[in-house]
């Protein structure tokens, strides 16, 4: 009896050591629910290296991004323990934390502050921290800036025509007014001239994501945050006047967007860009850079640039890896979170074109080279975004109802974008919807 216990202890010691090339006979099973088709090959190799080092077996479950939230909630509510590591959107963190679906990792990170500090404070505030605790690590950021066709902005004929019409120099927009002017300026019909060449199809000033997806609010976040307001005020209510103003701003862009704007989300906008239909985006996810840059191959003379959104405010967020409360192997799951979110894997991830979350990776000079432009060219802009938005936080991500609000708010906004209701009505409907979801003013954590 004693003997077998002792040998079991020894085994445990050996396997936890990991440094010994100990035969792994009974791996610890953990399951990671993540986004379908998300750098699948990269993930497979990262998982493999983790399994080898820790005697674990990691099952990766791929779920369509639009279904990930409800699928995870169902498994959490059912306390099935099916998912050990979950993938959360920025707006979902507070809900999962507040309802005890995920475990705080504050204690785990107590001796790993360096790793935590490597995540930009801006991103950390939005994705990781809630009510004084740390809830995991982000491993991918889709923080927003803007994509523009730099070649159009630099074209001398266009510059001249623009100045003649608007009275100021054509350049990257720094206000939403300028953004609108540029969108209007570049909206042309088939047969019109662009850069001195006749167009073989209609051309639009801006690509918008006004489809029935929760992305129109990300575009509008840039506008409403740029105004110094927020979706929810300190009392947990929707500031109707401000939302109306932001909605108006958005509606003034709609005439210069392709009609498909009302049906698409970011992938549709990227398709329009790659098909040489649009001149720029509004606030847009910078992680799409490798996609956007393909425009240069498809459209003769095109040069893409990733810049900060006007007024230097845009959506900031990332996918958070967190450990489920119903996990049977939380220690292994925590290790896995630190592994995927850690510098070694993030570096490899970046080399494969992923939008890394660590400052050390984003500022690594090896990604600033011309060879890396096609895959990592947006890193410098991403750093600027984090810097410009230092100290910023949104109440939308501080309320446990954030996910539900986030999943509902595109409905009134899209109604207005499609012309069915006015900006005022949209703002009022949003306020009513939010009040219904929260059952009154929404609780905001500090």
């Amino acid at each position, binding site marked *: 009896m004693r003997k077998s216990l002792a040998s079991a202890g020894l085994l445990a010691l050996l396997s936890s050591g990991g440094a010994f090339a100990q035969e792994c006979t009974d791996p610890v099973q953990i399951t990671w629910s993540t986004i379908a088709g998300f750098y699948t090959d990269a993930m497979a190799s990262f998982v493999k290296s983790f399994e080898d080092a820790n005697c674990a077996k990691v099952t990766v479950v791929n779920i369509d991004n639009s279904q990930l939230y409800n699928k995870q909630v169902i498994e959490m509510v059912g306390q099935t323990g*099916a998912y050990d590591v979950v993938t959360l959107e920025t707006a979902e963190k507070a809900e999962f934390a507040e309802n005890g679906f995920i475990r705080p990792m504050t204690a785990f990170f107590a001796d790993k502050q360096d790793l935590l500090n490597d995540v930009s404070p801006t991103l950390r505030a939005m994705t990781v921290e809630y009510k004084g605790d740390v809830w995991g690590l982000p491993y991918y950021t889709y923080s927003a800036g803007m994509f523009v066709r730099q070649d159009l902005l630099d074209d001398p004929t266009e510059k001249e025509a623009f100045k003649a019409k608007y009275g100021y120099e054509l350049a990257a927009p720094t206000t939403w007014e300028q953004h609108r002017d540029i969108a209007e300026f570049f909206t042309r019909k088939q047969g019109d001239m662009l850069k001195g060449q006749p167009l073989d199809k209609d051309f639009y000033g801006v690509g918008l994501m006004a489809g029935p997806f929760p992305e129109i609010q990300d575009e509008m976040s840039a506008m409403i945050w740029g105004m110094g307001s927020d979706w929810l005020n300190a009392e947990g209510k929707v500031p109707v006047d401000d939302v109306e103003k932001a909605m108006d701003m958005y509606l003034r862009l709609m005439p210069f967007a392709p009609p498909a704007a009302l049906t698409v989300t970011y992938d549709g906008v990227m398709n329009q860009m790659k098909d040489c239909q649009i001149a720029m985006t509004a606030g847009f996810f910078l992680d799409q850079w490798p996609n956007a840059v393909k425009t240069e191959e498809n459209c003769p003379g095109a040069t893409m640039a990733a810049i900060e959104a006007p007024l230097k405010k845009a959506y900031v967020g990332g996918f958070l890896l967190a450990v489920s409360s119903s996990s049977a192997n939380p220690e292994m799951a925590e290790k896995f979170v630190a592994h995927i979110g850690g510098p070694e894997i993030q570096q490899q991830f970046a080399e494969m074109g992923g939008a890394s979350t660590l400052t050390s990776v984003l500022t690594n000079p090896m990604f600033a080279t011309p060879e890396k432009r096609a895959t990592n060219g947006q890193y410098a802009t991403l750093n600027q975004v984090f810097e410009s938005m230092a100290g910023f936080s949104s109440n939308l991500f501080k309320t446990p109802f954030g996910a539900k609000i986030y999943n509902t708010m595109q409905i009134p906004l899209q109604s207005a974008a499609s012309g069915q209701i006015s900006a005022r009505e949209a703002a009022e409907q949003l306020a009513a919807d939010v009040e219904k979801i929260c059952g009154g003013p929404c609780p905001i954590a500090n």
Partner: protein
Amino acid sequence: MQRKTSVVVEILRYGAIFLVLGFFVFPIFWMVLTSFKPEEAIMVSPPRFFFTPTTENYVHALHDKNFLFYIKNTLIISVISTAIVVAFGSLAAYSFARYNVGDGHILFFILSTKMMPAIAVILPYFLIFRDVGKTAVGKSLHLGLDQHGALIVSYVMFNLPFAIWLLVSFFQDIPRSLEHSARLDGLSRIQVLRRVTFPLAAPGIAVTAVFTLIFCWNEFLFAYILTRKAASTVTVGVESFFTLQGILWGPVAAAATISVAPMLIFVLVMQRYMVRGLTFGAVRG
């Protein structure tokens, strides 16, 4: 109805049939065409009809995404569900058609189970299977979450009403006199069923089987909630083609083409029965 028809009428008729078929087949044709397009020929305006065909989408779907795994799951689940639906459904339908069990009330009840919106009962289902999966019976029958049994039971449940209602009318079409004489010849009731009634109703059963299989094959909501990975079906599997870099249209088209193929083959095989079998019992001479 053997009236003489003029050539003009015939030409008009086939012209119309051609148009009708064009409308119904074109989207599928476009899907198959897309499955052979290289990536850069898909999201382009104007749409391209001519391009260099490629098989890379099929390679992606079958090799990279291991789509055959989902096909296998779907096949297992659909075929077993269909078999159970047809077996249970025929027995029950025969009983309704011949013995008038429940005087129509049970028949009404069965159809009414189809009227509850699936979304409202999906979470109760989830919780039931979670708990059943932990019991000994549940384990042996694979009734837990993410196991084939759970989906099979759900699909049987959802298709039984349709199958029973369809089959009742088929059975009523079979003359009773045949069964009576078989009984007089000394066959037991079960033997009559097996040797006389079911063979005569075979076309109707075939039609029911075809539709049931199609419905099981294409079901999405339950497959999505009740499975995670091990028992996922094609409709759920296709989701892994919706990526953060956009929908992989080519591979989706390839996967969809692959998943339609077994259905098409099955329908072609059943064609012979269906011609006779789509004769609804409710039509009486």
